[in-house]
C-alpha cells in the first residue's frame, strides 16, 4: 500500500491542478478572512468571522479532488494505471487517501491561516480558540475538506467526466441542499439529513433542531462518503477501463 500511496502522490503532484487548487483555496479563504476582518464594525471579531471563506475553499478542494480522477479518464492514464496495477480497488483507495490528505492539509492551513489573519487585524478575547466548539470550527475544517474530497473522488470515478462531476459536486451542496428545505412540509426534515448541511453543523454548531451532535454529524458525513466510495469501487471494478 505504501508503494501505491507513493505512486499516487507522484501522480498528483506532477500535474498542475493540485497546486493551482491549493493556491486558490488558500487565497480565497485567507483573503476573505482579511476582507471580513478589515470591514468589520460593531462588536468584536469572533472565531466564526475568521472562517467566513470556508465554503469557498471547500468548493475548490472538491473540484481539485474530482479532477484528480476525472483527468485520468480524460487522458486515458487510468488505463496505464490499471495496467501497472490491476488491483483497481487498491489503486483507487490509495488515490483517495492521497487526495484526502492533501485536502486535509489545505483545510488546516486555510483555517488556521484565516484565523491568524483576523487575529492580526483585531485580536480580542473573542478570537481566542478556547472551547471545543471553537476548536471544531477551526481545526475541523481539514476534516471536512478531507471527507468532501473522498466524495469528490467517488463521484469523479462514477461520472468519469470533469464537467459532469464538477457540476454535480457544486450544484449539490450549493443549490440542492439549500433549496430542498424550501419544500413545504417535508423540506426541513430532508434538509436535516443532507450531507453537507450536516458537515456544516459539525463546524458551526448543531443548533436546537439538529438530529445529531457535532461528532455524530461528522461521522454521518464520513458514512456518506464511505458509501459513495464503495459504490465507485464496485463500479470501477466491473467497468471496462
Amino acid at each position: 500500500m505504501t508503494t501505491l500511496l507513493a505512486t499516487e502522490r507522484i501522480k498528483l503532484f506532477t500535474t498542475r491542478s493540485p497546486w493551482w487548487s491549493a493556491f486558490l483555496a488558500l487565497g480565497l479563504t485567507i483573503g476573505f478572512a482579511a476582507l471580513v476582518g478589515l470591514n468589520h464594525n460593531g462588536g468584536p471579531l469572533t472565531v466564526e468571522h475568521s472562517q467566513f471563506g470556508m465554503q469557498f475553499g471547500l468548493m475548490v478542494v472538491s473540484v481539485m479532488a474530482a479532477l484528480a480522477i476525472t483527468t485520468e479518464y480524460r487522458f486515458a492514464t487510468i488505463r496505464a494505471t490499471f495496467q501497472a496495477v490491476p488491483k483497481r480497488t487498491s489503486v483507487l483507495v490509495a488515490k483517495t487517501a492521497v487526495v484526502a490528505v492533501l485536502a486535509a492539509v489545505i483545510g488546516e492551513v486555510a483555517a488556521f491561516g484565516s484565523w491568524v489573519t483576523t487575529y492580526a487585524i483585531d485580536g480580542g478575547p473573542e478570537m481566542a480558540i478556547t472551547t471545543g466548539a471553537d476548536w471544531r470550527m477551526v481545526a475541523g475544517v481539514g476534516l471536512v475538506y478531507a471527507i468532501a474530497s473522498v466524495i469528490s473522488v467517488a463521484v469523479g470515478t462514477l461520472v468519469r467526466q470533469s464537467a459532469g462531476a464538477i457540476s454535480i459536486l457544486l450544484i449539490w451542496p450549493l443549490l440542492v441542499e439549500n433549496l430542498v428545505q424550501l419544500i413545504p412540509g417535508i423540506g426541513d426534515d430532508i434538509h436535516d439529513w443532507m450531507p453537507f448541511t450536516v458537515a456544516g453543523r459539525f463546524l458551526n454548531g448543531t443548533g436546537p433542531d439538529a438530529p445529531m451532535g457535532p461528532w455524530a454529524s461528522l461521522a454521518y458525513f464520513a458514512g456518506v462518503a464511505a458509501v459513495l466510495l464503495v459504490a465507485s469501487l464496485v463500479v470501477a471494478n466491473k467497468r471496462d477501463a
Partner: protein
Amino acid sequence: MTLLAVERIKLFTTRSPWWCTLIALVLTIGFGALMAGTSDEAIAPLNVAATQFGYGFGLVVVMVMATLAITTEYRFSTIRATFLAVPNRPSTLVAKATVVAVLAAVVGEIAAFGSWGIAGAIKPNVDLAINTAYEWRAVAGVGLVYALSAVVAVAVGVLIRHSAGAIAVLLIWNQLVEPLVQLIPRVGDDIHKWMPFNIANKLVTGNPDPTTRDVLQGPPPSDAVLGPWPAIGVFAAFAAVLLGIAIVVANRRDA
C-alpha cells in the same frame, strides 16, 4: 444566416444539449410539481411565483449546457476545424452565442410555463391566473434570463477553454460568491446589489406587486436597486461586454 445554421447543426448533433435540456426541464417542472403537491393553504399557499421554485436549478443547468457548447470545441479541437471553415472568428462566436441563447430561451420558457401548467393541473382550485406585470415577468421572464446567462456562459467558456474550469467559475460565482458577498460586514450589501446574477433575478422576482408571497417561496427576491427592466438591460450589457472580451481574446489567440 449560414453561420447560425452551422452552429445549430453543431449544437444539436452532440448529446450534451439534449441531456442538459432534459435535466433542466425535469428539474424545474419537477420542482414546480413538488411545490404544488406539497402546498398548503394554511402554511404555504401556492401562487404564480411559487410555481417557479426550480428556476435556479434550470439556470445552472442551462449555463453548464452553454459552457459545454464552446469548451467541448476546444476539448476536441473542433474549434480549429470551425475556424478553418469560417476564418471570421467574431461572426462564428456571435452565431454560436446566438444559437445557444435561443435554445436557452426556449428551455426557459418551456420550463417556466411547464412548471406553471403542472402546478395548475395539480391544484386546479388555486387561482394561478397570470394577470399582473409581475406575474408575467415571473414566468415569461425566465427565458430571457436563461438566454442572457447562456451568453455569459459562452463568453466564459471561450475565455477559459476548459469545461472544468469554466463550469467551476460560473457555478461558484452564481451560487457562492454572489450570496456570500452580502455577508461581508459593511460593504457586503452594497456590493451584492450590483452583482450580475442578482441584477438579472430582478426581472423575475422584482417588484412583487399585489401578490405578496413568502420570501422563501419561489426564487429568492433580488435586492438590486434597479427596476426590473433596467436591471435586465444592465445584465444584457454585462453579457455583451463579456462576449466582446471573449471575441477579442479568441481573435488574437492561436486557435
